[in-house]
């Protein structure tokens, strides 16, 4: 397989798998696990297949054009470093899938889990393999989103929701900062291509914008890697299912931050600013994380703080600016991923088997699960840095780097002491974890009787622990060559000599290691009794919770700040809002006209066509009448509005635009009916303007509004006049007229433009229409009508009172009696209108009509049914599912558009030909007709959805007022 294909597949397979996983039945645990396993194994195989090429020829690349005119391409690039990470992501992904199969309970909605999991994996691989900075940020934000969804997987749990929201807020804001930073870097370099950026380190470091770019970039990286002071989200993210914690919050996602810092290390590192910011964040996280980890009661909390500490170690190594530090950092990234993932899985097993993760309640589990206990011990030893394990090797490299002087400063001088202290803490919490869980007295109040987990659940831990051991004992033979490829791909020719051997002789780093081991063990002995009974959280820092500070800030920003702005700048009244809107539009339009002259043609009366002028006189009269009556006689205003609409419609016919006329007529009908239905909910005339003083103020306000309205309308008239009296510029109309039949396969140019030439515009427009319908619907769901229109209208009350007063009638009978004949006719018209809609739809390609007109006509049929027999009657008999129709329409339009990709054409290319049908003969068939069907379905759905919003409002209000009446009676 070509290398570029395998790269693209590596990104897309997880997403395809995710889409598939989402549609599995909710009890398909095994099928889901097989699918996810297959996807991860594919990722592994594809990545391994690329390895020889990377070693031989350097980075493998793939490119798909995205926005070539903006210099944006979907570029993928895999060098040794990216390869190492891709292997980590896919490999640990596979093990976690296997583990999750046994971890997740049958009651959990499994499809959601695997769908998010695979999508996350795709996004993570995207970060690792991106060859374009913008693409990288896109995938970066995707990981934040999927991490949010996965942390909040058990959304009925408040902790999970809060943790998810906090993680998303912190990492999402970081991601936005990263985007800004990347844009700055792109601005400095002049390209977003990773290769170009990596080659222009000197240019970036010498730029004036280096510091802002660096700070923004680091905000992104440090938030993602949970570094001080942004570390607080990670412990809260532990509400996620344990497989997620093992995968996202120890092995992969939190590594994205340090990955990015290492990736851009050759470009950004080596300056004083880098050293201070990164070094301080790393050192603080290293020390505080380790210290906090000791005092956690929750196993996962301990592991989370330990993760922060280890990431701090990596960050500190990266801050030093020495190539050896970078090597140690990359090495520690892989080591940490292996031992921490296995520890998380072990924690999950303990939780799974005993029902608790509280170390003060646990103890003595070695007797019940010796195998798991042994594995956890080895992994913890690796975490603590015990010799012959992989953690020891990278930690020794870290010590060696810490003693070196890199940039003489206080930070550099304290580094060795901090390193030893933090390592001692690491030993302490590792011992605490092992001793507290597996040894000591067995508590008798465990929620469940513990036993060994199934073999396959333990298998991933076994494999990871084995890796820890093998890498720790023979590093040169196992990880050595891969690490070398990774390091050279970052450092290039500057790669220094380094040695992965276990024994370097008795050196200072070795002594430091033993000092840390001894110190940590002693510290545990001292703290043992305290830890068995202490409260959650470290002493002295217990009060100072990052979480609480975060929540304060959130409240201040999103609640108090928003309220403040709303009080100062907002209004709940529609009139001022509209006034503002119109005034701004007026000024915006007048501004350029004031500066550049209008150039109006001389005005002349042209009344040759008396009939047409008369028609327009009627139209103008209707429009002005509608405005005049709108305030107090809404029904009259609506009738006038209808008159104006009909004049517009006739105008279209006059100027030979039958398409527009048909659509206008149908839209006119439907909107009139919808507004009629809505009239009933408008508030009555306010009585408060009756006193003289207020009347004066109100009058003044009205004159001002009148002035604004006249100015806006006059301006519109002037613009229209200016446009119409000018000689028409060369238009593209001729082009469309010429090509409509030859290329679009239709004789109705308007329709061909809509569904073919400008199909993408139409696609956008129907999307907007769908959104509008949903908005109307949701506004109505929360609609609280004015107090005076809550009750049912007077007529309805009188009718119901008559019905109720008579024993032989039930409520609503009068109205259905009165409506009997119209109702029958309306119901009979249902099929007739359907035929009309079908007719409009099918002739659309060659003659006036089309999906939009057909959709509106069809909606009119539904409206008639609702009018004729009432909401309940219709919905008992017809399946009215407007939301599905909207969704179907949008999907169909999108799918038809994408269908042209299969044939190698751009999005929404239409194909047309004639098809011979028996009896009917030869008819034109274009793929655009399917697109038009999507338009039809969406328009129908959107219109009916709005209708239903009105209809249900009446039904619901009735019920509400009836309940109120019943309460009054009982009281």
């Amino acid at each position, binding site marked *: 397989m070509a290398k570029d294909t395998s790269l693209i597949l590596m990104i897309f397979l997880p997403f395809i798998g995710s889409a598939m996983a989402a549609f599995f039945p909710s009890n398909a645990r095994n099928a889901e696990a097989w699918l996810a396993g297959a996807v991860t194994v594919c990722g592994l195989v594809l990545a391994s297949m690329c390895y020889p090429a990377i070693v031989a020829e350097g980075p493998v690349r793939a490119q798909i054009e995205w926005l070539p005119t903006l210099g944006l391409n979907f570029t993928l690039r895999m060098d040794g470093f990216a390869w190492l990470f891709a292997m980590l992501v896919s490999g640990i992904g596979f093990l976690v899938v296997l583990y999750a199969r046994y971890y997740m309970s049958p009651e959990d909605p499994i499809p959601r889990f695997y769908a998010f999991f695979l999508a996350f994996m795709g996004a993570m691989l995207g970060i690792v393999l991106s060859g374009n900075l913008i693409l990288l940020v896109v995938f970066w934000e995707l990981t934040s989103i999927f991490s949010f969804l996965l942390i909040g997987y058990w959304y009925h749990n408040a902790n999970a929701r809060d943790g998810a929201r906090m993680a998303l807020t912190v990492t999402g804001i970081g991601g936005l900062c990263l985007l800004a930073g990347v844009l700055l870097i792109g601005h400095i370099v002049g390209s977003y291509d990773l290769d170009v950026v990596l080659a222009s380190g000197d240019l970036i470091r010498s730029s004036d914008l280096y510091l802002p770019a660096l700070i923004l970039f680091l905000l992104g990286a440090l938030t993602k890697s949970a570094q001080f002071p942004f570390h607080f989200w990670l412990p809260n993210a532990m509400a996620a299912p344990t497989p997620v914690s093992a995968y996202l919050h120890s092995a992969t996602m939190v590594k994205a931050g340090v990955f990015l810092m290492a990736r851009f290390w050759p470009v950004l590192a080596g300056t004083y600013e880098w050293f201070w910011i990164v070094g301080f964040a790393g050192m603080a996280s290293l020390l505080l994380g380790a210290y906090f980890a000791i005092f956690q009661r929750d196993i996962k909390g301990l592991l989370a703080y330990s993760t922060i500490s280890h990431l701090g170690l990596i960050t500190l190594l990266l801050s030093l600016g020495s190539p050896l530090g970078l090597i140690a950092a990359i090495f520690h990234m892989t080591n940490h991923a292996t031992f921490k993932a296995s520890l998380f899985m072990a924690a999950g097993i303990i939780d799974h088997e005993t029902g608790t993760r509280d170390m003060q309640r646990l103890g003595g589990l070695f007797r019940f699960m010796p195998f798991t206990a042994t594995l956890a011990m080895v992994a913890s030893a690796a975490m603590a840095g015990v010799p012959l394990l992989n953690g020891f090797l990278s930690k020794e490299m870290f010590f060696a780097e810490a003693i070196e002087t890199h940039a003489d400063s206080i930070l550099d001088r304290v580094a060795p002491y901090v390193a030893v202290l933090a390592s001692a803490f690491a030993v302490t919490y590792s011992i605490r974890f092992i001793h507290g869980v597996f040894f000591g007295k067995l508590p008798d109040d465990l929620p469940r009787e513990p036993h060994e987990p199934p073999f396959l659940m333990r298998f991933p831990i076994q494999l990871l622990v084995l890796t820890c051991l093998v890498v720790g004992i023979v590093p040169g033979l196992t990880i050595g060559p891969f690490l070398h490829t990774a390091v050279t791909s970052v450092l290039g020719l500057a790669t220094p000599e380094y040695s992965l051997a276990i024994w370097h002789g008795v050196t200072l780093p070795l002594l430091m290691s033993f000092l840390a081991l001894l110190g940590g063990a002693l510290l545990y002995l001292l703290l043992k009794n305290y830890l068995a009974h202490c409260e959650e959280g470290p002493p002295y820092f217990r009060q100072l919770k990052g979480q609480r500070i975060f929540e304060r800030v959130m409240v201040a920003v999103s609640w108090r700040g928003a309220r403040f702005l709303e009080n100062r700048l907002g209004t709940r009244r529609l009139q001022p809002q509209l006034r503002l809107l119109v005034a701004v539009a007026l000024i915006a339009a007048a501004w350029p006209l004031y500066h550049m002259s209008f150039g109006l043609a001389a005005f002349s009366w042209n009344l040759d066509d008396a009939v047409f002028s008369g028609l327009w006189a009627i139209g103008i009269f209707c429009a002005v009448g509608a405005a005049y009556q709108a305030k107090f006689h809404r029904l009259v205003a609506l009738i006038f509005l209808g008159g104006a609409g009909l004049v517009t419609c006739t105008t279209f016919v006059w100027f030979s635009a039958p398409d527009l006329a048909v659509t206008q007529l149908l839209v006119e009908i439907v909107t009139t009916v919808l507004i009629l239905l809505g009239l009933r909910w408008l508030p009555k005339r306010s009585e408060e303007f009756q006193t003289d003083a207020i009347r004066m103020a109100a009058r003044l306000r009205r004159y001002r509004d009148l002035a604004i309205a006249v100015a806006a309308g006059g301006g519109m008239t002037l613009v229209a006049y200016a446009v119409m009296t000018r000689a028409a510029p060369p238009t593209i109309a001729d082009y469309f007229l010429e090509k409509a039949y030859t290329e679009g396969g239709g004789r109705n140019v308007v329709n061909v433009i809509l569904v073919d030439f400008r199909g993408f515009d139409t696609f956008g427009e129907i999307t907007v229409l769908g959104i509008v319908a949903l908005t109307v619907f949701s506004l109505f769901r929360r609609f609280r009508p004015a107090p005076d229109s809550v009750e049912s209208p007077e007529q309805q009350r*009188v009718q119901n009172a*008559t019905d109720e*007063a008579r*024993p032989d009638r039930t409520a609503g009978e009068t109205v259905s009696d*009165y409506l009997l004949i*119209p109702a029958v006719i*309306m119901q009979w018209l249902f099929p007739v209108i359907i035929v009309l809609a079908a007719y409009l739809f099918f002739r659309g390609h060659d003659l006036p009509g089309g999906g939009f007109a057909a959709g509106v006509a069809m909606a009119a049929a539904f409206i008639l049914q609702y009018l004729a027999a009432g909401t309940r009657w219709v919905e008992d008999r017809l399946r009215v599912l407007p939301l599905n129709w909207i969704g179907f329409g949008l999907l169909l339009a999108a799918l038809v558009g994408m269908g042209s990709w299969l044939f190698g054409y751009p999005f929404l290319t239409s194909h047309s030909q004639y098809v011979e049908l028996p009896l009917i003969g030869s008819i034109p068939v274009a793929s655009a007709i399917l697109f038009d069907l999507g338009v039809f379905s969406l328009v129908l759905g959107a219109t009916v959805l709005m209708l239903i919003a009105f209809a249900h409002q009446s039904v619901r209000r009735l019920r509400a007022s009836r309940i109120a009446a019943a309460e009054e009676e009982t009281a």
Partner: protein
Amino acid sequence: MTHAADLPAWAALPTAFFLLLGSGLTLLGAIGLLRFGSFYERVHAPTLGTTWGAGGILIASMICFTVLQSRPALHEILIAAFVIVTTPVSLMLLARAALYRDRTENNGGVPAFEAESEGTDGEASPKSSDQKQTKGQ
């Protein structure tokens, strides 16, 4: 319009006749709507326009376009059918709404409405037969 000159005299005459008949009746209906006094009288006037008024214009249209295009133009029948089905219904709705309103507001000059206080069987039965009569109209 532009093609009117192509129409042979034998076709032009009936076309003009029906067109004038239809539009004349429609005009008459419109004047009636304006001039009549009460709502119930007014309801009748526009029916002139929707029955023979529309019918005349449609027949004229059929003759004209059948001759001009030398093939039978029968779309107008469909229009006529829908006009015949729908207009009476809307007029009936209007009339019944007005009647209902006049009855509830106790305006004079309309047949009596079932009084709400009277609920005895003896009085209700003739009223309900009255109801059935109106239903049957």
